[in-house]
């Protein structure tokens, strides 16, 4: 039986237990791929810690941390084929990085520089969406377009990320309902990190699981251990395959509920100690995806102390370089505010841009910029 055919109430899919012991079918990955997975997770963690620190030092604006979710982000994005697409929320810096979005761009975006929104052409990553769940119908539409353009066939799948809070929004239901009706090649990946800012999962829905909501849309839902990168990889791989090449009578979309925890705040603007107990955080930290995968790889003889130290060193360098690059980028040209509104500036926008240029010339930029 494929992972996806499990009853959503049938317990979570796991490959590794909390100590890194094998309790399920290990996905067929090469040694290099296993090491890459580990390195991506270490990189995402270190990037996250440094980003939070930059915000605390006033070197970056509000930032949504991802620590605790590296297994879900890296495990799922590594399952994507090169042509597949990912449609993120605002927290998938780790997944986007795996898909080729430079860390510098992510930093620039959260440093308030619009140029961080320019995703390189060769990265099939959609622009992050901040309003909750609103990217879900986009992902359905993108997958639907792929199917329509290919006369019903599809060579690409579209994974869409969102949190547990998003499942309460109308757009979640509308996006999944359209996907079911039009049988689009979508994987809906719910990062159930237990908290929608300060509101816990049990106040979000009375459903026993989030995965079971898929039943209402006529396709499969599966609950997996989101802190087990191998379970994530396995379930996502199966869902992507089905999206592109379903069996007779099978629906393409899948809802994956990856059960996990965010170790830090929702964003650097909130204080989680106000709404949750430290004991709860500790309990979940015991499930940390990174030591779990590391232990498994040590058991397999793929990693040892030297290799781990080497990876840690290279990860530190990579993040430091990205921060240097982002911080040494000169501020965006203020005139660029008037660009990218329309393909061609309207007369009024042109006029306002000219007025703005005149103001800068008269007063100098120092009259506008607050230190």
């Amino acid at each position, binding site marked *: 039986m494929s992972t996806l055919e499990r009853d959503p109430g049938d317990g979570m899919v796991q490959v590794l237990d909390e100590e890194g012991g094998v309790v399920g079918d290990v996905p067929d990955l090469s040694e290099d791929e296993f090491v890459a997975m580990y390195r991506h997770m270490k990189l995402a963690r270190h990037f996250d810690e440094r980003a939070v620190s930059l915000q605390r030092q006033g070197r970056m604006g509000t930032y949504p941390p991802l620590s605790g979710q590296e297994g879900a982000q890296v495990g799922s994005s590594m399952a994507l084929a090169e042509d597949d697409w990912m*449609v993120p929320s605002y927290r998938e810096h780790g997944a986007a990085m795996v898909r080729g979005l430079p860390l510098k761009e992510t930093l620039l975006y959260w440093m308030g520089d*619009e*140029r961080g*929104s*320019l*995703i390189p*052409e060769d990265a099939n990553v*959609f*622009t992050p*969406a901040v*309003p909750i769940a*609103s990217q*879900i*119908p*986009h*992902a*359905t*539409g*993108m*997958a*639907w*377009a*792929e199917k*329509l*353009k290919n006369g019903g066939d599809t060579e690409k799948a579209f994974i869409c990320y969102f949190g547990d809070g998003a499942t309460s929004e*109308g*757009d979640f*239901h*509308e*996006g999944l*309902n*359209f996907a079911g*009706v039009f049988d689009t090649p979508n994987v809906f990946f719910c990062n159930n990190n237990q908290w929608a800012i300060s509101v816990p999962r049990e106040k979000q829905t009375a459903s026993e699981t989030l995965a079971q909501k898929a039943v209402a849309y006529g396709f499969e839902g599966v609950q997996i251990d989101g802190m087990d990168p191998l379970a994530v990889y396995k379930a996502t791989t199966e869902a992507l395959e089905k999206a592109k090449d379903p069996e007779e009578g099978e629906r393409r979309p899948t809802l994956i509920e990856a059960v996990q925890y965010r170790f830090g705040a929702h964003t650097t603007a909130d204080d989680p100690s106000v709404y949750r107990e430290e004991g709860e955080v500790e309990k979940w930290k015991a499930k940390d995806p990174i030591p779990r995968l590391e232990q498994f790889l040590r058991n397999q003889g793929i990693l040892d102390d030297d290799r781990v130290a080497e990876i840690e060193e290279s990860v530190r360098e990579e993040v430091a370089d990205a921060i240097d690059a982002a911080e040494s980028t000169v501020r965006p040209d203020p005139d660029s505010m008037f*660009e*990218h*509104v*329309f*393909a061609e500036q*309207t*007369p*009024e*926008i042109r006029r306002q841009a000219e007025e703005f240029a005149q103001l800068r010339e008269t007063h100098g930029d120092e009259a506008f910029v607050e230190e």
Partner: protein
Amino acid sequence: MSTQEHEATQNLTLVQSVRDALATEMELDDDVLVMGEDVGKNGGVFRATEGLYDEFGEDRVIDTPLAESGIIGTAVGMAAMGLKPVPEIQFSGFAYPGFDQIVSHMARLRTRSRSRYTLPMTLRMPYGGGIRAPEHHSESKEAFYTHEAGLKVVMPSTPYDAKGLLISAIRDPDPVVFMEPKLIYRAFRGDVPEGDYEVPIGEAVTRREGSDVSVFTYGAMTRPTMEAAEELTEEGIDAEVVDLRTVSPMDREAIVESFKKTGRACVVHEAPKTGGLAGEITATLQEEALLYQEAPVKRVTGYDVPYPLYALEDYYLPNAARVADGIKEAAEF
């Protein structure tokens, strides 16, 4: 477009010209598709998509689930992937469940992605009152959309313009909100060329030349405005009527030029007065042509009340008599 195509014209109602625009553009461009509630087999509740389902099939004329955010949100995704969806919202009063998708995504995706993604989509919605419809079926809320940077908003008043503007909207690389005056969907017919042609977005047209007062209007209100202007000739008032056709971007140049000629203005729309486009036009005249101004700008608009149930809608909507009073006030000040 060839001259030959232009020699052949049809006499169509406005809603037929909308349908003709869709069929014409779908024929020319495989990426164009129509989607929405009841647009397929049923041909749309106003018949704006009649017959398209049989002509182009269910993959290009798509009956969707009843979900405005889903319709607009999936169209955003389709457009980002290079299709040219033309989603229909059955009545503009039902657009609000999809409002977040319109303002947060449809309007912003180009900016948010620094032009990596653009949305060549056209969101059609019939707007406005006067057809004895139930609650939430008669609103005129173009101000919402014109206030949102990144959207173009088109409101035609003739069958010829409706077709040409809709074709332009579909071909536009940016998202367009296309608001159709349902009051005049079938009120009259006009000559509409066969084949394709464009009426440029962002250009107003002078419907009637005049020297005493400029009247600015658009959409369904163009008719009572023209009627009032004609009636007033008997009283010796020669009104110029400018039909904006596109309310965003607004043709400020045409507005200001007309005003400089007459020095007097009356603005007519059926949307509520406060925060309505008449205020925007008035402010533009203040900024651009104050010294030409010989009278206060008169606004003839709907009232600042929820659109009334239909027993009272005739009192709410500006008609030729109210418009004539407004024009006279501006002309005789």
